């Protein structure tokens, strides 16, 4: 995915979103999750996706199934308690759709190599402050992670924190204050730097030519998403594609 041109990347994402909402078959959603996982693995992003599934998606799924299958015992629009199985299936459908959307976003957004990021964002029509903010958003996550690690290192270096992962987890609240203060200081310092160095103008001068975008990769990416859209339509409205 790393060489997909900006327009194809955006088109792929939009088609994937539409197809996911059209689809009502759990098996198909499961299949697309597997396909996404394979593509994410090819871009070395599978670990992140699995973390997303384990720490975000799984708790959400449990909550949704509990609410619709056990508390409401019915899908939306039905009298409460009339169809526990339907309620649970509805919760699973929503959960799987969210899992697909999460994977699709990770595949489309996180597979952009840092070098191609400005050109991709500009290719999506972002200009001016919007472009700077978007670049900042992409840069801030790894930076915050690094800063959090540095704070943990500093606390360990001073003997304030044990070496285990659990000790690190227990110290999370203590991380927040220095992280927050650092973010504020960083913003203040960088506001000066951006102004002094006319960063708003500079981001527009970032190179866009001679970058290794591959039209073939773009065509393949869009074609695969259209295929997925076709499958979704075929199962939802078979008549539209002449299928009986």
């Amino acid at each position, binding site marked *: 995915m790393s060489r997909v041109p900006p327009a194809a990347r955006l088109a792929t994402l939009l088609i994937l979103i539409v197809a996911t909402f059209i689809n009502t078959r759990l098996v198909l959603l499961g299949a697309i999750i597997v396909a996404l996982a394979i593509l994410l693995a090819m871009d070395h992003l599978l670990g992140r996706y699995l973390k997303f599934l384990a720490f975000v998606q799984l708790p959400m799924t449990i909550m949704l199934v509990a609410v619709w299958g056990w508390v409401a015992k019915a899908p939306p629009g039905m009298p409460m308690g009339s169809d526990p199985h339907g309620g649970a299936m509805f919760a699973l459908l929503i959960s799987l759709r969210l899992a697909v959307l999460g994977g699709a976003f990770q595949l489309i957004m996180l597979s952009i190599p840092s070098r191609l990021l400005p050109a991709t964002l500009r290719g999506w029509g972002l200009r001016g402050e919007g472009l700077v903010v978007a670049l900042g958003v992409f*840069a801030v996550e790894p930076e915050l992670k690094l*800063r959090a690690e540095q704070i943990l290192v500093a606390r360990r270096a001073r*003997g304030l924190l044990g*070496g285990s992962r659990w000790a690190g987890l227990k110290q999370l609240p203590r991380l927040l204050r220095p992280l927050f203060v650092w973010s504020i200081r960083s913003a203040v310092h960088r506001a000066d730097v951006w102004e002094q160095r006319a*960063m708003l103008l500079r981001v527009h001068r*970032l190179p866009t030519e001679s970058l290794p975008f591959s039209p073939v990769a773009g065509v393949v990416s869009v074609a695969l998403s259209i295929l997925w859209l076709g499958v979704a339509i075929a199962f939802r409205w078979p008549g539209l594609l002449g299928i009986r």
Partner: protein
Amino acid sequence: MSRKSSELLLAALDSRRILAIDGPNFSGRSDLLRRFCRVNADGRMYLGPEVYFALSGLTTSVRQELELHAGGVLETSDCLESAEKLKLTKLFEQHPATLSGGEQTCLAILCAMILRPKILAADCALEQLDSQKLETSLDLLNGATGPANGAVITDNRLDEWNYAVKTIVIGELSPDPSRHPPVPPLDPSQIERLNPVRAPAIELQNITAGYGNGPDVLSGVSMTLQPGRVYTLRGPNGSGKSTLAKVLSGVLRPVAGQILVSGVASNLWKTPGKIAGYHLQNPDVGLFEATVSAELGYKPGANSAGAVLAVRDAFGLQNFAASNPLALPFPVRKRVSLAATIARLPPWIILDEPTLGADAATIAALAEIIRSLARKQHGVIVISHSKKLLEMLRGNELKIENGAVSQTQVASTAIG
């Protein structure tokens, strides 16, 4: 900043030449340069000691940061040669935040020069550079790629430079009085109030260490460190000095090898900072609390904090107990961070670039504090590029190059 100071500074500047401002801490050098770059800021650029904040924060690789400043693909820009000279090319794909202090400084300087400011004001920004990179940076600032109307530099190592620059004493520029309260000098005699400790000997056997899936930074390091001594650790930027410090303090688990503490195999990484406390070179990373007293770990008015108060007084922080550490000037923040590490009285104390932002008098007092700690049987390891400090602490030298450490003992001034 008064108009007069600005005019005096401009008059002292020569085109494409470096002007160094000499003066002690808190003499108004930083304020003068900051205001000089704000008033009539057209074409003037300020680079402070917190070099990391001089980077854009918009990029995720060194290459992208340089391209952002150059406005074009790096291969076609004229900064590639300078990047090569500053040894940045091998770091192109790394995140700027993961670079060592010296490497970040090189990147910040190059980015600033790419923008061709008329005047570049580097305020103690070059102090993390090793001697070779310092010379290269000064060459670049002095050469055709440098600022058109010259560079103004403050640096506490001016007397160590083997580089001829025009120097002016801060008093000649009529600086405004400092806006900070008076900062007491360091008082090494306070360390005598501390009780002696029983630090263990530490032996490294074939230690290999690195980060994640990256290459090994240390490779087969073996050495023995005896308590009650001061070891100086030197080596070029990015050679693994901080990595060795992390292994010794238990912050980083080595990939291979064994660590013996008092002759017994020990997993230092399970109790980091207990045997060896490690002061990181960037003071801001190691400041967590809202007040200096909380940072040092004592409650104002409590009687049980004798050792902490001794360390506080040794670092001249009596007047700052209720101050927010991050609101203090850089040299004071550095002192707070140093004191916070030492106040916990770990048997071994590792100080990474303790002289950053410190003037000659402070460095001399700091050397005395370090020697006093060794007299109290602490083992002390000092990582520094300050020739002055290294000379004062001469004795047990560790040199690191290409991931390997060599250990030599030279005739030294007695510590005991």
